[in-house]
């Protein structure tokens, strides 16, 4: 019974993750990519919380808190990058930035 409940959470998380992946692959707008990235990260967070709920110990929840804090930081950096992109290229579509081409 319990296992069944866990499966629900995992399914939701997997769906969220896949939506995130699809978004990253299909969107050209940097902010959109960032949003999808968040979606993926939250899918993972959901996983962690779910596992923590259905097993002993609170380690998973603690980690999730850490992960959320980290995600915030990551968004900050990401947004900063987006702003920089806008400044330098006057555009926030990702395929305009290819300075790293070898």
């Amino acid at each position, binding site marked *: 019974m319990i296992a069944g409940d866990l499966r629900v959470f995992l399914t939701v998380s997997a769906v969220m993750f896949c939506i995130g*992946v699809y978004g*990253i*692959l299909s969107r*050209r707008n940097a902010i959109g*990519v960032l949003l999808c990235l968040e979606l993926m990260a939250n899918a993972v967070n959901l996983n962690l919380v779910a596992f923590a709920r259905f097993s002993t110990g609170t380690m998973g929840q603690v980690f999730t808190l850490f992960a959320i804090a980290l995600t915030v930081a990551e968004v900050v950096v990401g947004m900063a990058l987006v702003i920089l992109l806008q400044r330098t290229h006057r555009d926030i579509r*990702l*395929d305009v*930035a*290819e*300075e*790293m*081409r*070898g």
Partner: protein
Amino acid sequence: MNAVELAALTVLAPLVVAVFLIVAAPVRRNGVLAPGLSVLGSLVSLVGAGALLLRQIFGLDPDLTVERQWLVAGGETVARVGITVDGTSAAMLAVVTFVAAMVQIFSLGYLSDEPEEDRGRYFTWQSLFLFSMLGLVVSPNLLQLFACWELVGLCSYLLIGYWWRKPSAAKAAVKAFWVTKFADMGLLIGLVLLYYHTGAFEWGPGAVEQLAAAGSDPEKTPWVLPSVAVAGLMFFAVMGKSAQFPLHVWLPDAMEGPTPVSALLHAATMVAAGVYLIVRAWPLFEAAPVVLNTMAIVGGLTALLAACMAIIQTDIKRVLAYSTASQLGYMIAALGAGSVLGGFFHLTTHAFFKALLFLSAGSVIHAVHTNELSEMGGLWKPMKLTALAFGVGAAALAGLPLMSGFTSKDLVLEGLYKAASAPQPVLWFPFLACLFTVGLTSFYMSRVFLRAFFGKSSRRAYRAHEGGWSMRVPMMLLAVPAVAAGWPVATFAQTTGLFEPHIGLLHFTPVGGIALGFSVVGFAVALMVHASGGSGGMVSALSPLGDLIRLSLVDRAYDLAYRQALNIAAGVGWFDRYMVDGVVNAIGALTLLLGRWSRHLQTGRVGDYVYAVVGGLVLLAAWSQMISWVVL
């Protein structure tokens, strides 16, 4: 003082002087102090050595050896250094210190025109040279002997290269160094071999027994008997040091050094070291008859060839140089024939008269500023003392009766004759060669003497004059033993423990009589040639022979070997740079190329990277699924 302390004083006095002069630069650069200290050091040594010899002659001292540990391995002594005092070393010490002191005093005058700094350097090396030779003489074992042997070679290098500004002197110095170093490889390997078999560097009967035992050990059957290998390798080094054919090439070139250096080098130190090694380590040589026979033949050959070379020289010093090689051939031949007394005694007398010859030649060169015999002539009038000294030396070298050279040469020839008729037929060659060489020696020495001091006076002879006291006194002092050193042959034999019953007060044998005949003939021919207006014809008649010996065969062979070695080295250098290092660089370049190619994978588009990540994820998942299928 006991004998060892006295010997230590004798040996260390020049070392102290040398070290002091090396360290104290201002003293070294002082034109009075440096030579003074150096001469003082050698005089102290001379006194010490003289006292030691007297005490040995009168049997006041037992044979003594004092040693200290020098090298260790696993707590066991590998090598020692020390001092050994016996008749042999005492006699040699006396000869070396006497000749060295005379040479140094002579150098005071001879080099008086040199810059002070150079003179300081010269006397520093002289002191070091003397120390090295004395250390060699008192060596209680072969390792110390080898160490001093190398130092002697080093000092020769330094002194031959005294006028290093002259490219020819620098070249001659390095040539001497290389040739003797090449030969020294033999001694080094011989030492290692000796240690391997005996666990020490001794030359006594014990070592001989151990070598013999190692040779008869059925478990390790060497392809050459250890005793023969050790003696043979050591003899190879002697050939280099004592200028035996074909390793004699450095000796004539060594004339680039100042004349007193040649006197020291040719009389008492450098070349004497080789013969002394054989005398000292005689038990090791005695145990290897094959090596002894080789020695006799090499010695005889050298005596003959070098005498031929001496005939065609036009440079007074080169005549003497080749005569040294020739006389060393006598010593080696005598030792090869088993006559230690003959070889050692000839070494002693030769030291005196050859030093005398070189010093008087130096006096001549100092006066006329040339080495060429053709520019001398008629020097008897301005330089009577030098002429007399040279005459005495030449007479001793040629082996006139009552002269020192006569007795020692007689012993050599007698030893050879006895050994040849023992019978060892192979020794007839060295005997006959040495006998014939007596005539040649007499001829070339007479020729030089007549040519330099008599006949038409050259332009340079008018301005010639004797040197100062410092040049005259050593000549006079050296003339005494050059004449008389042969007389106390019995005492010499007793002191050095080489006494043979038939040696009387004055030694004379029928063989000596024949030799005297050769000598007289040689002198007569020289006189005739001189009377008929110079020896130019003689020289030109003989020079093809000389070319054959000197240039075509030996020198050219060395030149070729050196060039080939350089070529091979250049090949190795190229191989290292462009093959070994080439591979390294190729790997580096390959990495660069790989990077250049793989950078095209980096498109710089974020999307592409994400595709790669997701693709990788999918592949990973697929792989893990496959694994689980395979495992289940």
